[in-house]
């Protein structure tokens, strides 16, 4: 019985139609599968989004950390800045605040200070503030190292100030968040995959009569699998889409609200990492659906054929 092309097309079409019909005819089962998967994918996406934002926040905070360098009066800020910019790990430009600028900003903040510093006879103002440099870094964890290097190699440095402890703490928080986050995500993924496989298996079991009859009338394995695969794909796509809608909504409405309430929340500009994360969520959904359904049917088909194990080799 040779298969011609149109025969093959009709087989495919019927098989796909079966898959769609099955889904429509057992809406409860479909709902259970889709909602389980949606929850799984939603949590996964939420975790990734939160992780990404937390990393961003801690990065933002650590870029605000600087080494402040106080210069002796004989050292010009320009030449010291040039030297510091030459150090590896320093983010150019180094911000220069001259003695005059320091005085100006201080007296603006405290107008009475000017009188104190003024010579009552010559009316000349004595400037006690040193010129300072604000050094930003690429990597906060190098702060101590760079601070030591500035002290050692840049002449005319009076002293330095760096909030090293805060830098280290931020750094640790960042790695802890990542570690815990990825751990939870991995456990969650495996757990939900198991649930999804079980749920789809339930759906497959639901149709055991149909599978049995297909076997009896001589349907090839691919024909039996195809509708379930298609279903898995549609389940995956539907759950991925719903999960993404929830994620977008979460990011655009409640999270923005939270940001307004708590100023320490600094979100990435625009939609941030939403696009790559939603693409990943959709991909994982499709993967889960296809994997879940093919594993479930595979097990079932194998179970049906278990009778063949009774064969004693001759």
């Amino acid at each position, binding site marked *: *019985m040779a*298969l011609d092309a*149109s*025969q*093959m*097309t*009709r*087989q495919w079409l*019927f098989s796909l139609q079966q898959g769609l019909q099955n889904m429509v*005819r057992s809406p409860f089962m479909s709902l259970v599968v889709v909602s389980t998967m949606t929850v799984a994918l939603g949590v996964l996406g939420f975790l990734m989004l939160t992780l990404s934002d937390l990393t961003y926040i801690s990065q933002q905070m650590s870029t605000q950390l600087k080494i402040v360098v106080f210069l002796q009066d004989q050292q010009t800020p320009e030449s010291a800045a040039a030297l510091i910019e030459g150090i590896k790990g320093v983010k150019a430009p180094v911000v220069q605040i001259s003695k005059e600028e320091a005085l100006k900003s201080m007296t603006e903040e405290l107008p009475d200070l000017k009188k104190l510093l003024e010579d009552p006879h010559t009316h000349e103002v004595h400037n006690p503030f040193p010129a300072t440099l604000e050094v930003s870094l690429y990597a906060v964890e190098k702060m101590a190292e760079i601070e030591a290097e500035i002290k050692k190699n840049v002449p005319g440095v009076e002293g330095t100030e760096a909030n090293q402890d805060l830098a280290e703490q931020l750094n640790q928080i960042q790695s802890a968040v990542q570690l815990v986050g990825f751990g939870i995500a991995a456990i969650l993924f495996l757990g939900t995959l198991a649930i999804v496989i079980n749920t789809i298996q339930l759906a497959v079991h639901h149709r055991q*009569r*149909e599978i*049995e*009859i*297909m*076997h*009896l*009338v*001589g*349907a*090839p*394995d691919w*024909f039996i699998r195809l509708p379930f695969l298609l279903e898995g794909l549609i389940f995956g796509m539907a759950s991925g889409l719903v999960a993404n809608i929830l994620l977008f909504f979460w990011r655009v409405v409640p999270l923005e609200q939270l940001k307004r309430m708590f100023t320490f929340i600094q979100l990435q500009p625009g939609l941030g990492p939403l696009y790559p994360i939603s693409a990943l969520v959709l991909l994982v959904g499709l993967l889960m659906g296809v994997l879940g359904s093919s594993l479930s049917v595979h097990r079932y088909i194998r179970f049906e*054929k278990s*009778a*063949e*194990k*009774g*064969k*004693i080799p*001759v």
Partner: protein
Amino acid sequence: MIRFVNVSKVYPTGNKALDNINLEIEAGSFTFLVGTTGSGKSTLIKLLYREELASSGDIWVFGKNIEHLSRNEVPTLRQQTGVVFQDFKLLPQKTVAENIAFALEILGVAKKEQEKRIHSVLELTHLQAMAKAYPRELSGGEQQRVSVARAIVNKPPVLLADEPTGNLDPDSSWEIMKLLTKIAKSGTTVVVSTHNKPLVDLLKRRVIKLDQGKIVEDNQGGGYNQHGTRR
């Protein structure tokens, strides 16, 4: 033609269901399989559509040793072997016509051709009026006719029926048996297992009696020794 050569079947549990069966069934013939419960009738039928493999021996169906079919060839064997069971095995969510069409859809038969063939089997099984009904709306006898119609719509050379009248009243049973003999007359090789002694006696066809996995009687002219049977 069907031929069993030294066929034995031992289930993984250790149950010996068939014990060195040697048997020839002619093409286009009608054969009854009888015997007490557990004598091996269903097992013999299962071997013929490769639901089970023999533990030893060879089974030839129209020149092909079906014990040596690869996994991919089993569907082809089943497409050429109609099967009917006691419990009808119909899909409840499909109509009579859709249930019958199922056997054609998996082969990719064109809709026009499907309609033609379904029309002719509906006529043969007197189900024309019920084409659009669902199985739950039919009597047991009618459901079994649908099952027979599905089994033969693809014009298989072999039709196997395992206790097709097991769930039916005497009138429906008689009707199904008449239908099966009619199908055999058209050239299909029909094998029917049954406990229905009166019908077997009435129809006067070949009767093979099994007991503990062995053939103990093979009566070409019909009828069998009732001793030890259920009815």
